[in-house]
């Protein structure tokens, strides 16, 4: 599975959203992405990419697009 597929699947499974919703997805824009959903998402991302995210990055991950930027810049994950 490619990194972008892993990334998308993490959002879909942990936030209970569809693939069509992903690109415009922001924190608290859907019911599933509340604070609890956010921590579930972080746990899944850490698991699938084998990383441990810093608290600052967890707070900054405010959208689907921002998440890609954080993973690329701070964790060397290529999309």
């Amino acid at each position, binding site marked *: 599975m490619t990194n972008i597929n892993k990334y998308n699947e993490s959002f879909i499974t942990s936030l209970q959203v569809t693939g069509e919703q992903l690109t415009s997805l922001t924190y608290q824009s859907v019911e599933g992405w509340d604070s609890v959903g956010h921590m579930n998402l972080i*746990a899944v991302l*850490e698991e699938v990419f084998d990383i441990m995210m810093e*608290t600052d990055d967890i707070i900054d991950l405010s959208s689907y697009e921002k998440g890609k930027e954080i993973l690329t810049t701070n964790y060397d994950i290529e999309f």
Partner: protein
Amino acid sequence: MDKLLANKNVVLTGCLRGIGKTTMEVFARNGANIFACAQYQDIDFENTIQKLSAENGIWIKPIYFDLSDIESIKTGMRMIISEKVQIDGLVNIAGMVYNGLFQMTSIEKMKEVFEIDFFSQMLITQYISKIMMKYKSGSIVNIASIAGIDGNPGQVAYSAAKAALIGSTKTISIELGQYGIRVNALAPGVILTDMTRALPEDKFNNLIKKAEIPRAGEPEEVAKVLLYLISDLSSYITGQIIRVDGGIG
């Protein structure tokens, strides 16, 4: 008696002396592998670690950082994370005491005390609890103080920081319970350490007089309660503040 922490990996802060050093010794005797956090490198400390490791068939890894320096703490935590091992226990022991009446304690000094006695504990707990969340298991104990519960004249900054630690212990225990992580605090009374030896003699004696058991506690008497709280013996205890004070108050 079985070793209560056999095969468990534990992070302890403040291992150079006092309650931290004694806890490291008690945990080592009970089979724990230990990330022993300390403020600075010290030859006696490293000799103690080597001796404890050899005697108990465990590993102890020193991790050095300064609680007043956030970047230094982060570096220390990243070293622990890079080991990629499960962490079963965290005891936040390191801290500072500051004595000063309310009207004689500057806001700058209060911030300094909070930095060391509260914010650094929060940062360490954020890092270590992330590892515990991954494994859905763990026990965290914060060393608070009876001053954080009862107040203590001349310790406004210290007691307020410890009260903050107590409040956060309760909230974090609620948030992390779903991940199988227990979070408790231990509130020592007068324990014979360098910190309490720094108290004025009359204050020290007055505090001891208030206890039902009229003496100061030994660090080992605190360490044994920590052993209980980190071990599986306390598997259904969370969000609690345990006084170890000989019955003060």
